[in-house]
């Protein structure tokens, strides 16, 4: 047992840190450190910088053009990016669909899709959820009917995160209506510029356009865009979700945000208020415990052992912590979290013409806090709601 990183791991960290500090544009990290609104150009810009270095697919094995890092190296890379204020890599391409294509796709599919994901040039979206499906993913109703060398797709996906930027979307579609719901699902890659694809925004309670509905109206999809076998899509979807759950804990971002919480608490004069400070201290303990749990999983993975029993807990705890720090930031600002100035969450907001300091009370740092709190209500709902996660944990213990 050893809590310390090895000298090799430490050297790796130094190398990654130096590269990230040298290559992460300051205007992007400024937005991240202050929770200002990120544009497509920021997210894709960082993706392309990573891609040029061969790190956008940082978890990929060497045979597919990745760096071939082990679990601990991947963690160190993610931590260095998060602490430096890099935007969270949009996971749908490099983290979610790429491993499925690698594991179950054909050599032709590898060559066709993986380079565009690694380079950051092709923006992928996720087509899993449907109206009414919630956490019951197997209830997929979007149909794909085989007609010769193509599928005709009809139906609707929803909660499609950043789908407004999407070039491609990976979808669970129903190819068989008989038998168990899980048995008739296929995994299809769809070009979002195809005729019959319509993306409509869903505006969330923070006023943001982050998620979308995607409609498919007689969309023609070539059969070579099917991944793996027809009707085996459920297996691939579960494989993908296993990747999503470790990524979703996001303890590195939590560490960065804890420091932002402390900065806000100092600005708002509650850092030395014992009642408020205790809440920060509790959150700090929660984050250390989450980090230790993540490191236990990584250590097991590095040693080739399964840590699934603990990995299932990461999504629950990570999402609760994300909600808690946004909640405490809002509470720190108190009444100055109440003004809702949508434009004040933009970098370069020229608010001085309306208010001294650009915001009521001059508290410009408070502009995104309530919106972030409202936005983060999603974390315990998406990726399989925390209640569904508890069902899974209970299943492993109780049968």
């Amino acid at each position, binding site marked *: *047992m050893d809590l310390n990183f090895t000298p090799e791991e430490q050297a790796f960290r130094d190398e990654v840190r130096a590269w990230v500090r040298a290559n992460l544009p300051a205007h992007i990290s400024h937005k991240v450190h202050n929770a200002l609104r990120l544009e497509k150009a920021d997210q894709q810009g960082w993706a392309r910088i990573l891609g040029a270095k061969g790190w956008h697919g940082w978890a990929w094995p060497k045979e597919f053009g990745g760096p071939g890092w082990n679990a601990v190296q991947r963690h160190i890379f993610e931590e260095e990016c998060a602490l430096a204020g890099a935007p969270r890599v949009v996971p749908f391409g490099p983290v979610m669909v790429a491993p499925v294509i690698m594991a179950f796709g054909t050599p032709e599919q590898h060559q066709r899709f993986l380079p565009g994901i690694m380079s950051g040039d092709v923006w992928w979206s996720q087509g899993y959820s449907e109206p009414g499906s919630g956490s019951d993913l197997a209830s997929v109703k979007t149909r794909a009917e085989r007609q010769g060398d193509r599928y005709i797709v009809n139906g609707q996906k929803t909660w499609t995160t950043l789908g407004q930027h999407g070039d491609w979307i990976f979808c669970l579609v129903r190819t068989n209506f008989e038998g168990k719901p899980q048995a008739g699902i296929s995994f299809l890659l769809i070009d979002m510029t195809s005729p019959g694809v319509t993306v409509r925004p869903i505006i969330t309670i923070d006023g943001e356009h982050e998620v979308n509905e995607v409609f498919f109206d007689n969309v023609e999809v070539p059969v070579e865009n099917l991944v793996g076998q027809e009707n085996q899509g459920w297996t691939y979807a579960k494989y993908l979700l296993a990747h999503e759950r470790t990524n979703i804990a996001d303890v590195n971002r939590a560490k960065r945000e804890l*420091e932002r919480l402390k900065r806000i608490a100092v600005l708002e004069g509650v850092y030395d208020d014992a009642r408020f400070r205790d809440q920060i*201290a*509790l959150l700090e*303990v929660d984050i250390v*415990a989450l980090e230790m749990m993540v490191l236990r999983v990584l250590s097991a993975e590095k040693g080739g052992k399964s840590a699934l029993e603990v990995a299932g807990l990461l999504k629950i705890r990570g999402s609760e912590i994300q909600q808690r720090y946004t909640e405490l930031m809002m509470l720190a600002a108190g009444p100055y979290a109440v003004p809702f100035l949508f434009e004040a969450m933009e970098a370069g907001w020229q608010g001085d013409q309306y208010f001294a300091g650009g915001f009521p009370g001059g508290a410009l740092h408070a502009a995104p806090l309530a919106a972030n709190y409202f936005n983060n209500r999603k974390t315990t709902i998406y990726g399989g709601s925390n209640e569904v996660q508890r069902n899974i944990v209970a299943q492993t213990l109780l049968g």
Partner: protein
Amino acid sequence: MDFDFNDDQAQLRDAVRKWVSKDFDFERRRGIVKAGGQQGGYSKEVWQSLADLGLLGLAAPGDHGGMDMGPVEAMVVMEELGRGLVLAPYAAVALMGVAVLRDHVPAAVQAQWLPRIAEGRARLALAYQERKARYRLDHVTTTAQAQGETWVLNGSKSLVPVGDLDDGVAEAYIVSARVTGAVDDHAGIGLFLVERGAPGVRVQPHPTQDGSRAAEVTLTEAASTLLVPALSQGAHPLGGHAVLEHATDIGLAALCAEAVGAMEQLLAITVDYLNTRKQFGVVIGSFQALRHRVADMKMQLELARSMSYYATLKLTAPVTERRRALSQAKVQLGQSMRFVGQQAIQLHGGIGVTDEYSAGHYVKRLTTIELTLGDTLHHLGEVAARMEDTAGVFA
């Protein structure tokens, strides 16, 4: 970074677990508690078994009859003793007491005590608890005055772990006493060795909530020898208060590990019960409200285990980092122990509060652990006071 146990550690775990399952079942524990009566549960046979297994010398140096093992081995042993709800002042003597001797006293004192402790022929535990101190180690009203070569102590200490008063085992206490300074000063506290049979030492044993034994130790012009001077000097780089903190942190890590073992077993007992007990024609483990509670217990157990590892692995860190880590760990453990304990009883229903069933006794031990060496609020205060130390670390 590595969280695997090596082969020696795995063997050590097996040996302790084997002894627990063979020689220390719940009925034996009940017998010891009952026999302890108004003095509290203690078994010299159990203590001798721990000596025979080599566990009393676990942390002692090899040249003093010990096994020279480190914090991870101590953690492994504590997890297993916790799992079996073993009733013995093991951590107080073999980990905390031995640590003071091993790291902070002259060689002659080490030679006098460590081999006998390892063999089970002597017990040595810290006596620090004073009324109104709550969990502060610097609240010391017991006084020490030099009289030639010896020191005379006056004062009273509570909750001192003790064994049998007449089992022929030499017993002594490492007493914190004030040499100079005001009641809450860090400085001016020395550590003194007080033998149980010395003149002016009164030991009144009593039972504790977890079925164990502790004593109120009253010192009236009691003779003692100086172990650690009040102020740092030459051969003693640390003063008494810093040594007390070191021993306390070792004790905290041990309690965290014991609690993990106890919670793991308590969760297993609860899961078994939910899969056996029927209501409304089905096993109650089929009800989602209860299943989610089990998932939450598992969460608290794994968070606790994570922080128990953290506590143990930080014992060798620089003092500021060590103190913060141990307090962070006890905050997590305190919350986990209370949640797992309360839910275990609730999920059992009435049987959970009966004396003849084991679950309630696990809960009593977990509760006692929370109230030992600083509860959740105390350590939350310690974490909050040390938060400046982390500012900027992650930036």
